[in-house]
């Protein structure tokens, strides 16, 4: 919202000679986004993530290099675009973040609580100052790993697996959750993401049932958020949307979060993955 205000101010100041028609506003927003795209601080997170993957950590003093992200132990290239998927060892459908938490437990010996304690990083000036996962100056190992692993799928086609019955169930449940309206504002995901070409303030909203929109949305998370000075993951995106929907807190790596991500990944199937991206 803060950046939107600034942007609105910039637009008001620099566009007096243009017609105030909506299309011009839209064009300026696009130009602003392209300007942002040119240098992306996500690279710093990616570099840290690559290092962390190889670093021995935890009670077992082990690295994550044998972690199976779905394509076999240690295979990172192309793993992100094939997730979420069913994993026989846990008996669950997992996205990247819940899978990394599993590997931190099984390979590095952390407790499940430790593995999930700080899923989102909190440097810079977080928009949500009471976020328990954040603390100014604190980084999230999870976020760094996600940045690097996602970057290893850049340019690849989004192709989640929805053949196993549990994957199918996660997808169908995710679809229902997308349409689930509740809370004091009657919101659901569909409130903001059910129609084409809509905005909240100046922020464009993807219609998630439209393949092109879903591909662009799914294909650009994780993303570095300029307004927060932080890299944010897909789990964070779900958590934050759900907060704004006035729902109770969506638990990190919960089944509902994974079902929603499975649904979105499937909607985005066939798109080109281009993340970590840069966001407003």
């Amino acid at each position: 919202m803060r950046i939107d205000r600034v942007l609105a101010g910039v637009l008001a100041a620099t566009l007096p000679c243009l017609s105030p028609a909506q299309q011009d506003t839209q064009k300026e927003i696009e130009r602003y986004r392209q300007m942002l795209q040119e240098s992306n601080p996500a690279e710093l997170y990616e570099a840290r993530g690559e290092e962390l993957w190889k670093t021995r950590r935890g009670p077992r003093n082990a690295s994550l290099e044998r972690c199976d992200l779905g394509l076999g132990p240690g295979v990172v290239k192309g793993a992100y675009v094939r997730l979420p998927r069913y994993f026989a060892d846990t008996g669950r459908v997992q996205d990247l973040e819940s899978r990394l938490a599993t590997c931190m437990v099984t390979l590095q010996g952390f407790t499940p609580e430790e593995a999930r304690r700080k899923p989102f990083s909190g440097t810079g000036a977080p928009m949500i100052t009471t976020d328990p996962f954040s603390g100014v100056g604190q980084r999230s190992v999870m976020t760094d790993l996600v940045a690097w692993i996602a970057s290893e799928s850049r340019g690849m086609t989004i192709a989640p697996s929805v053949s196993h019955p549990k994957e199918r169930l996660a997808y169908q449940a995710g679809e229902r959750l997308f349409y689930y309206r509740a809370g004091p504002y009657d919101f659901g995901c569909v409130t903001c993401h059910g129609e084409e070409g809509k905005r909240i303030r100046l922020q464009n909203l993807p219609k998630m049932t439209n393949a092109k929109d879903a591909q662009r949305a799914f294909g650009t998370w994780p993303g570095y958020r300029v307004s927060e000075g932080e890299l944010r993951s897909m789990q964070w995106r779900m958590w934050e949307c759900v907060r704004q929907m006035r729902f109770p807190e969506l638990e990190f790596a919960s089944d509902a979060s994974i079902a929603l991500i499975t649904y979105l990944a499937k909607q985005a199937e066939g798109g080109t993955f281009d993340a970590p991206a840069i966001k407003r």
Partner: protein
Amino acid sequence: MQPKMIPALALALCGIWVAGCATRPSDSETERAVAEMIKASFKTRGQATVARLNQDDAQALCSKHAGELPKDVSDGIEKAQQATIRYPSSGKLTGDWREGERIAQSGVGKQFTDAPTRPAGGSCYNCHQLSKQELSFGTIGPSLYQFGKQRGASEAIQKYTYGKIYNSQASTACSNMPRFGHNGVLTEEQITHLVALLLDHDSPVNK
């Protein structure tokens, strides 16, 4: 491969295919999974309790009929929601448009990160154009610029406007707009200020 193995392989493939079809989760299985997730994947934080996930009739019907809303369901929702509207006991439907503008600008309220004691805003600009000056407006709802200029400010229009903000679903079942009065997001007085913002001759909405 031995020729005699081919029928066996075909049979096995057939088995996989049938199993594949049979294992596609049914609607009731999906419903059970969703109910389980609603129960297990969320936790109360601050004012946002897990009880918020329990749907009322309108929420349940709107979720169920998200694809297309049958006429009888939509009529039923509107009738039930109409009956919830409470007009101010003072009889005064319109307040101060300047207060209304502040409420329309504010998007806080009811999030677990919001102080429960702080009054909620109306988040109006999040979804609507209202005044000409505010360029940062959303488009989920229609533009309300010149709302009063086009409709006047008769008592009937005031009543309609108050009712629309109080319970949007009384006139449009499953509207994206929150039922601000019915769900206790905005107070009676706050709603009267928003009515003024929309209808007052001096409001920036009608300039």
